[in-house]
């Protein structure tokens, strides 16, 4: 009612204006005012409603147009404009809807995950678990299933880790004993590992059957399978790590920690399921993702602990290298050997300058080691000595090693390894150019970065730029 009043007011106002400006008839003024008012009303309506209303408005406008040409023309134009705008908006909306339908799965999964994550954070903050979000029976069921699954997962992990710990103890004792037993140890270890792996596979498959029973859709299942495989790998890698742990205590602590983590995960998973819609797919996707996160976490925490505890996962590798080298080249070739904990535990060998080439050649040509790829070669000036650093990789064994040689700083010179790896050509030239290290036997030892007439070697710590004018 008040709308009508407003319209009238507006109408009279407009009418007065028009009267003063041009001489139109009263009837025309009135009709025009009404038309305008109507158009405005239609606009308002359209704002609230959608296309249908727009259409209705349009129809009305059209009839008005037939009756009162000039006045309605304006209104119609305005309405048309508005309609266009609306239609565009609607179209855009529709597009979005279609799009969202297309990847509804992905979105749903993402949403589910997001919700799970949100809940997890909330939980962690409040430390009150699970009690507040028990809803209908369907979600409760899902929650129970998730919890059971997670529990099974945790148990399996625990088992695996226990096995790993066992192997740690055995391994440690063996290594404490004489070196002569090393070969036997390796064999035994290999066997044990094999067994472990088989067992792991068995328990894996058992879990698989259990999960097959779960409601998860086929797609989600496949995903979970892939994840599990990945996890299995991770677990194996983890057990390798553990095999070298000296302190069973520490391992036990790690185990407990991981178990706690898994437990926590399980609860969180359950929580995530509880808030979800009843859509089984979404739940399954969320589960799979939470699992992935848990696996990633577990892996992360494991490697961390391995780093805290002294013996490195690559210690057996280093032992193997050193053993093979000493067997073939004698005791004197190596100046030093250690695990470089700061460089992802890469086994590091330090050669003597006179045996450097022999050792490098052995590392490449020996069938057991087969370091066929030179990843990096460079020199450094350590003021007390010069150093050439090589990072080698064996594609056959998928193992890295870094090889270093310390050489005299005043007359730095060492054998070139270009006969072994052609890829060493330019890096050696670079080391010569910037540090002045001479590589004996290099095919073309010239400057590569600096101009040919440059004086001095810039990366040396005592370098001072040569200036003609001084």
């Amino acid at each position: 009612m008040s709308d009508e009043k407003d319209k009238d007011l507006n109408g009279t106002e407009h009418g007065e204006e028009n009267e003063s400006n041009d001489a139109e008839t009263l009837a025309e003024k009135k009709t025009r005012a009404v038309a305008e008012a109507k158009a405005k009303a239609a606009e308002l309506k359209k704002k609230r409603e959608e296309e249908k209303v727009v259409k209705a408005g349009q129809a009305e406008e059209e009839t008005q147009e037939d009756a009162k040409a000039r006045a309605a023309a304006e209104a119609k134009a305005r309405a048309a404009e508005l309609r266009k705008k609306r239609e565009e908006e609607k179209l855009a909306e529709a597009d979005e809807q279609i799009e969202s339908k297309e990847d509804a799965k992905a979105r749903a999964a993402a949403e589910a995950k997001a919700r799970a994550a949100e809940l997890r954070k909330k939980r962690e903050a409040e430390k009150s678990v699970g009690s507040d979000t028990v809803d209908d029976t369907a979600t409760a069921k899902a929650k129970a299933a998730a919890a059971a699954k997670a529990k099974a997962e945790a148990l399996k992990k625990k088992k695996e880790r226990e096995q790993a710990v066992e192997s740690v103890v055995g391994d440690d004792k063996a290594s404490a004993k004489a070196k002569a037993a090393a070969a036997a140890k390796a064999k035994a270890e290999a066997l044990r590992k094999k067994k472990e792996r088989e067992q792991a596979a068995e328990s894996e498959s058992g879990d698989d059957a259990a999960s097959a029973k779960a409601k998860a859709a086929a797609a989600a299942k496949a995903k979970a399978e892939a994840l599990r495989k990945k996890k299995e790998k991770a677990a194996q890698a983890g057990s390798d790590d553990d095999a070298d742990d000296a302190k069973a205590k520490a391992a036990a602590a790690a185990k407990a920690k991981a178990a706690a983590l898994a437990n926590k995960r399980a609860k969180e998973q359950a929580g995530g399921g509880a808030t979800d819609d009843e859509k089984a797919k979404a739940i399954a996707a969320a589960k799979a993702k939470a699992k992935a996160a848990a696996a990633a976490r577990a892996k992360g925490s494991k490697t961390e602990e391995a780093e805290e505890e002294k013996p490195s996962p690559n210690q057996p590798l280093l032992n193997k290298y050193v053993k093979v080298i000493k067997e073939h080249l004698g005791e004197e070739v190596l100046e030093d050997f250690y695990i470089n904990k700061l460089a992802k535990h890469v086994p590091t060998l330090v050669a003597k300058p006179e045996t450097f080439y022999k050792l490098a050649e052995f590392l490449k040509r020996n069938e057991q080691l087969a370091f066929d790829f030179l990843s990096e070669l460079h020199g450094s000036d350590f003021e007390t000595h010069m150093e050439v650093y090589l990072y080698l990789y064996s594609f056959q064994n998928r193992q890295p090693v870094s090889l270093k040689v310390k050489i005299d700083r005043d007359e730095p010179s060492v054998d070139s390894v270009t006969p072994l790896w052609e890829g060493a050509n330019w890096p050696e030239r670079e080391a010569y150019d910037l540090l002045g290290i001479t590589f004996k036997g290099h095919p073309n030892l010239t400057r590569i970065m600096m101009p040919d007439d440059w004086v001095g070697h810039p990366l040396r710590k005592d370098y001072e730029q040569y200036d003609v004018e001084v």
Partner: protein
Amino acid sequence: MIRTEEMLLNVGPQHPSTHGVFRIVLKIDGEQIVEATPVIGYLHRGTEKLAEDLQYTQIIPYTDRMDYLAAMTNNYVICHAVETMMDLEVPERAEYLRVLVMELGRIASHLVWFGTYLLDIGAMSPFLYAFREREVIINLLNEISGGRLTFNYMRVGGVKWDAPEGWIDKVRDFVPYMREQLAGYHDLVTGNEIFLARVKGIGKYTKEEALAYSLSGANLRCTGVKWDLRKDEPYSIYDRFDFDIPAREEGDAWSRYQCRMAEIEEALKIIEQAVEQFPDEGKIMAKVPRIIKPPAGETYVRIESPRGEIGCYIASKGKKEPYRLKFRRPSFYNLQILPKLLKGENISNLIAILGGVDIVLGEVDG
């Protein structure tokens, strides 16, 4: 009797097809290349020397200028090296952002290669299409980092900026768009007979040669070595994504083309998954001391850049500046095989072979 004489031909350093300042001294007999001697160093800026007087955070912008077509991976490698030394754990959200920007950068880099390589061998239009799509990526990266090519985006312990409002959705929308365009590229180029005639069997080498010459990236994978550090030595959170390592057996320019195009597709897969798993909230920086001092010792890490294996060696004495910093620059290593590939080739294949290696001179010269 026609008497032939060897002639010395200088290509570059100012030559458009070298994509920078790269010079090759060619000894030619008629149209046959007898010997090719690459001359580099025109863009040497002494990054490693400069870094010895800089704090770790200050070095990051210098890394942008090495491989300026994929600066995000350079950013990452030095951060990763310092994080490895300090045993830092990077927040999950930061890791996802890093993966997203690195993979976007990988696509952008491959697009530049695709466009310019075809331009090199005579096809004009693919260049325009490739740069159109690249512009979308550059805009995305600009939005998150404030830079189009030199991002200076990552920090030790995380990233500098969080994703702006709606950025993740834009990245999500980019994936189907790029897929569509990629299909267009294949229609336009991949089956083209002229293109095939220019690249098939050109610049061929074997797996053994590739390994001996320390080649990496697509240059190695084109010989059948399935090797990708993202998969084989997973860093960051790459072990959470499902993707393939495209590899071919032939070892020629054609197989390198196929590898790189397939890598775009794989990078899209990773982006798709990363967007889906992207955490809604969380920190983007770990707790890091204001002045970063890694423990005394040395480290070497390597990651997969679009051009191959990029590594970073740091020798630290526990100070705020590195004692010695060294980058293993993939283009520098990959380029070494060029004289071998050019020997005996027809001079018309020179550019097709050089382009196929995919070098960035900023990285070659360091």
